[in-house]
């Protein structure tokens, strides 16, 4: 399992669970889950790129 697949895997399931936990309506749950998924993946990639420029 590559780094990126691992990231997708854990982000997906965490987003699904949090979507169901944090919202009550099905539509709101999906929106919350999708936002959280892309937030987790996007922030991880962004943090990875920022760390790339660190010299040590």
């Amino acid at each position, binding site marked *: 399992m590559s780094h990126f697949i*691992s990231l997708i895997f854990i982000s997906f*399931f965490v987003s699904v*669970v949090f979507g169901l936990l944090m919202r009550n309506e099905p539509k709101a749950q999906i929106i919350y889950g999708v936002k959280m998924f892309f937030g987790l993946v996007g922030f991880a990639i962004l943090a990875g790129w920022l760390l790339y420029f660190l010299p040590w």
Partner: protein
Amino acid sequence: MNSSQTADKQQRSLMEPGVIIAIVLGFILPGAGHLYLKKLARAAIYFVSITSLVIAGVLLHGTLFSLLRMNSGNGFLQLLASIGNLGLGLGHFILHAFNLGNSDITIRTNEYGTTFLIVAALLNVLVVLNAMDIAVGEKE
């Protein structure tokens, strides 16, 4: 009704058998608390999500920090990880009994696996708390 009466009512309802059963079932099997509360779809999704993370964690040779193992007494962070992993409930002890999650930290995927296991355990705690809220009547 003042706040003390409200708190007293809340305390009483927390002690009802149905609430306790939902909590205990949630720690026996992920999503079982919701199954008991007749939330079938949520129970299935919680079960699949948390179980998938646990299986992936084991397959990635993650370390299951446990108070039952010597590796948990080596530091404060490991103690916290051990307490967090207890959130898996019965699953924690099953993994321990089959000596799963006792991997070598030099394996490349060990950190990922360990993270998967801890995240699954903490998610299960949140799911059990959600089942408790539903059983009490605070959530639907």
